[in-house]
């Protein structure tokens, strides 16, 4: 069971990491307009 002493803190770090990745995705505008990428194929310019 000693491995839990490593795994549980690791899971905490992992969650913080995922939150960080989402922050990057959000700030780079990926969620501003979810339909945009799908509509892009219809555009000319």
């Amino acid at each position: 069971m000693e491995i839990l002493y490593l795994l549980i803190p690791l899971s905490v770090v992992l969650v913080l990491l995922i939150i960080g990745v989402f922050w990057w995705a959000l700030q780079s505008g990926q969620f501003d307009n979810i339909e945009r990428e799908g509509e892009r194929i219809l555009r000319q310019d």
Partner: protein
Amino acid sequence: MVADDFAVLDDPLEQQAFTQASEADDGFVNESVLMVQGMYCAACADTVESALARCPGVLEAQVHAATRRLTLRWDPARTRLSELAQAVGRTGYRLLPMQQALGVSERVKETRQALWRLFVAGFCMMQVMMYTWPEYVTAPGEIPADIVQLLRWASWVLSLPVMLFASGPFFASAWRDLRQGRIGMDTPVSIGILVTFVASSLATFDPTGPWGQDIWFDSLTMFVFFLLGGRYLELKLRDRTAGALDALMNRLPEQCERERPDGTVERVSLKRLQVGDVVRVEAGQAFPGDGTVLSDAATVDEALLTGESHPITRRRGGAVVAGSYNLGGTVRVRIDRLGRDTRFAQIVSLMEQASTEKPRLARLADRIAAPFLVLVLLAAALSALLWWSVDPHRAVATAVAVLIVTCPCALSLATPAAMLASAGALARRGILTRRLQAFEALAAVDTVVFDKTGTLTQDRVVVREVRVRDGWTVERALRAAAPLARASLHPVSRALVARFEDTAAGDGPAPLLEVAETPGRGLTARDTEGHEWRLGSAAHCGLDEAALVQVGRSVADMPCAYLADAHGWVATFVLDEGVRPDARAAIERLRALGLRVHLLSGDRLGAALRVARPLGIDTVVAEASPERKLEQVARWQAGGHRVAMVGDGLNDGPVLARADVSFALGHGAPLTQTRADFVVQSGRLSDVVFVVEQARATMRIVRQNLAWAAGYNAISVPLALVGWMPPWAAGLGMAASSLLVIGNAMRLSRMVAKALSNGLPAVAAPTPTPV
């Protein structure tokens, strides 16, 4: 390759919108924010950046690939923006000023922030649940104590971001209320969150202390997550209503082609344009302002007014509105109104006004909520005190449950959420709501009163009947009148031409010379043999109207136009206002909804009856002056009826204001002046029926929401007080009730989509053939 000259970027007036000047060591440095058009990936960003880096005078160029935003620092002494733009243009991209993006960026930031808080709370919640799960499913002592402690610490660590960051809006709003000496919606929520966290933290770090060893980190994070979810949906709902027309707003062109007095064309920015300018609008472009068509005809798409895009023809002298698209060839337009004065800007500001209004029921809910919240705080304190003497371990849990479960968020959301959803849905259909309150009034209406001219009837006339001299046929009379009528744009002339084109097969009209128009009276012309022809009023044709009526050559109580040659009377064209094609169906539907339909007209009784009879209207009040109309509406109201008035918004302002609910049909009246609660821009009567149905649906949803919110509180508060509700259930119940209320309201926007696809007449029926 983009080969514009970009002169518009050098315009100082234009520049101040997207450029900031700052002083540097040697001279000035300008920082401009521009949009790069035609860019999709990081590689494109590199191309643009390196193209700019090669230009002299560029200090720094940074392109953000995802937002297509270029931040450019440049030296105004060494280069001009247009030169830089040309350099970028050579690589195939176009630089545009970022002015509209600046306006939108506020909202984008707000949405991002809300989503970010929601996500932090969501992820922490999931993980905290994971850590708490073993304690729920095992018997005490089954897990080693040190591991239990480790799990608690991990929960505490992941609750920190939720407390410190995600719950920020609740604390901020509670603090704001507190400083103003009020108790707001977020006060009990904030106290609940704080107490839960403090008690759980103490239990985590001092399990033997007086706080017991119960932790509620899972309840806490879940509660915050659901609450934020509700707020996020609410934000989206508000955004959709106010922003329903925002997408259209961005279609105004940045610059346009203005004609100089000598006929040459120059490109100028929209800001430089002035009222009275003549601009050329190419196919596919949007009109920069409200204007008058100077070309022969223009085909335009006015989806922003009617909510549906099909081509409409505007002839010379017709009006076009800013933001609508030119579908045909290049059109010359004289600008009549710009910027804030355009119909389009009015629509947007109207919608913004309406969406910030608080309807009566919402104000009532808020009034009830304030003392209710004080009671909640007292009840929570009381229950904590009582439980403290019985079982101190459960005191905190009970108080927290009471605080959280009773939050009347759902109650205060119930009304505005539903009405906002409806207003947004109607806006997408081209129907503007001026007051949210009108939904409640309209749902209670039992009488609909129509104005006649321009409401039940179209604002143009049709030829109803033709009487001719012995030996003549109707076709021959029309053929004789057509060339005269063609020379004029008067509504009667247009009606004659339309009738001629409908009936005459093959034969063209007889050629005429020297056609002259006497405004307001009629037309005169000479045929090839030198005989004179006249078309117009009886006086213009030298005829005695009363005598003609006596011998059956004319009709007394209807408008008529006459045709005369050198020998006198040839033909009488009896005119009639065309009844709107959808009037019959709309009135039938209103009656089926249990409403009484009346006609209130200033016209003669005969004319009013002729319109009203085939439509199945209950009562006709004719020859009514504006005062008489007001009096009549007041009489109906005194009789206990709730009256909705439908007019064109032009001539019936006072009556519209007097009625309980009012509709303005079409877009004749300036929006800022119209007193109507709903503006049906398409002018379709079926849309009036639609709004009535939508209002009833809205109030049904509001009632459901209020009933649910009240019922929920009535049941959950006693449960929490006696300690039968653990904090997690309280959080779930409260958040779920808010989500339910918002979700229920959102159904209203889907109803519109369904109604549209179910074939409510979304496209205007064809023009009726003259009777």
